[in-house]
């Protein structure tokens, strides 16, 4: 839930990028960090293993400046995707206002996508929040994969139950930035609609 500090006239929102390992969560944050104006972004903090895999989380604070007199801050996090780190994901998800679920468009990753989304639903519910009302945006990443391995969008919709849940869904290539800001705009809008 967002935090509104009336004395300091500040609003804070927390957005978490969730999804299976290697789907491109960290790449999303890196691209955002490389593109937003200097006065908007803080340092990108990554707690990674030696092999560059996310161990705890990546963290990117964004300062949107004053909106109607309120200093508005968005904090973006990624979770480590590997199955091993389930408990760590629970920790990072704590108090999130919205989630970007990054799905891997590789056909071979469909089951991992589905498992990760199921786990997300469980973890949101465990925080006593209603999953159906929780702000979620889906990103189908790696749309640049070769045709042989690329899962068609309707197939992914079907597996992830998008049509049923009415989530916004965005196709992306995080490495080149395609769809990255569209995703960020979509989740930001979803989060502020609940403020």
């Amino acid at each position, binding site marked *: *839930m967002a*935090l509104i500090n*009336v*004395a300091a006239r500040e609003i804070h929102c*927390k957005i978490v990028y969730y999804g299976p390992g290697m789907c491109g969560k960290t790449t999303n944050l890196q691209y955002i960090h490389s593109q937003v104006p200097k006065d908007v972004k803080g340092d990108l903090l990554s707690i990674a293993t030696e092999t560059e895999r996310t161990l705890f989380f990546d963290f990117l604070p964004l300062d949107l400046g004053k909106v109607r007199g309120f200093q508005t801050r968005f*904090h973006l996090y990624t979770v480590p995707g590997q199955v091993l780190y389930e408990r760590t994901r629970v920790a990072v998800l704590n*108090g999130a206002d919205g989630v970007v679920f990054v799905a891997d468009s590789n056909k071979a990753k469909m089951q991992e996508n589905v498992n990760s989304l199921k786990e997300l639903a469980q973890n949101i519910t465990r925080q006593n929040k209603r999953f159906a009302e929780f702000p979620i945006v889906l990103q189908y990443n790696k749309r640049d994969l070769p045709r042989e391995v690329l899962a068609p969008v309707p197939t992914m919709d079907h597996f992830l139950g998008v049509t049923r849940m009415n989530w916004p869904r965005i196709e992306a290539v995080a490495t080149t930035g395609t769809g990255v800001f569209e995703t960020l705009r979509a989740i930001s809008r979803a989060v502020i609609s609940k403020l």
Partner: protein
Amino acid sequence: MDPQLTSIIVPSEEIAHIEECLSRLVDDTGSDYALLLDKSGQVISSKGDGDRQDITALGALIAGVFASTREVAKLLRERDFRASFQQGVRENIFIALIEEQWILCIIFNKGTHIGLVKVLTKKATDELASVLERVRQQHKARDEVLGSSFRTSMEDTIDLLFRD
């Protein structure tokens, strides 16, 4: 709407209470720093030696570490885990939970005894728990605080800053 999704609005007078409480804690224990965080990692208020540049990252990390430690405790079937202590060479960190929502964090050095920190932190968390209780009760309308056109302005800002 799901009450769990609505914002926590901390009014000015409660921020003043929080600041007073943190200042007193720093003064009475001789600590370097006291910090109140939301469980999401956002800094609500901080008191102590000068302006820390790294406070935003510090908040994110402390909340993350504390949440992880709680998950560890759960795995060990420890039910009531509300505080944690980290001992460093120069600085020590004591962290206490307030009603599953806020995290109070005290950073102190060798000159301060941990026993004193624990006792005074307990007092402070009780006080902050009543602040939190009042904050939760008041249910101020969002429009009353933000103004009705806030959302539209916010959307414009998002479109302006988050573009390709």
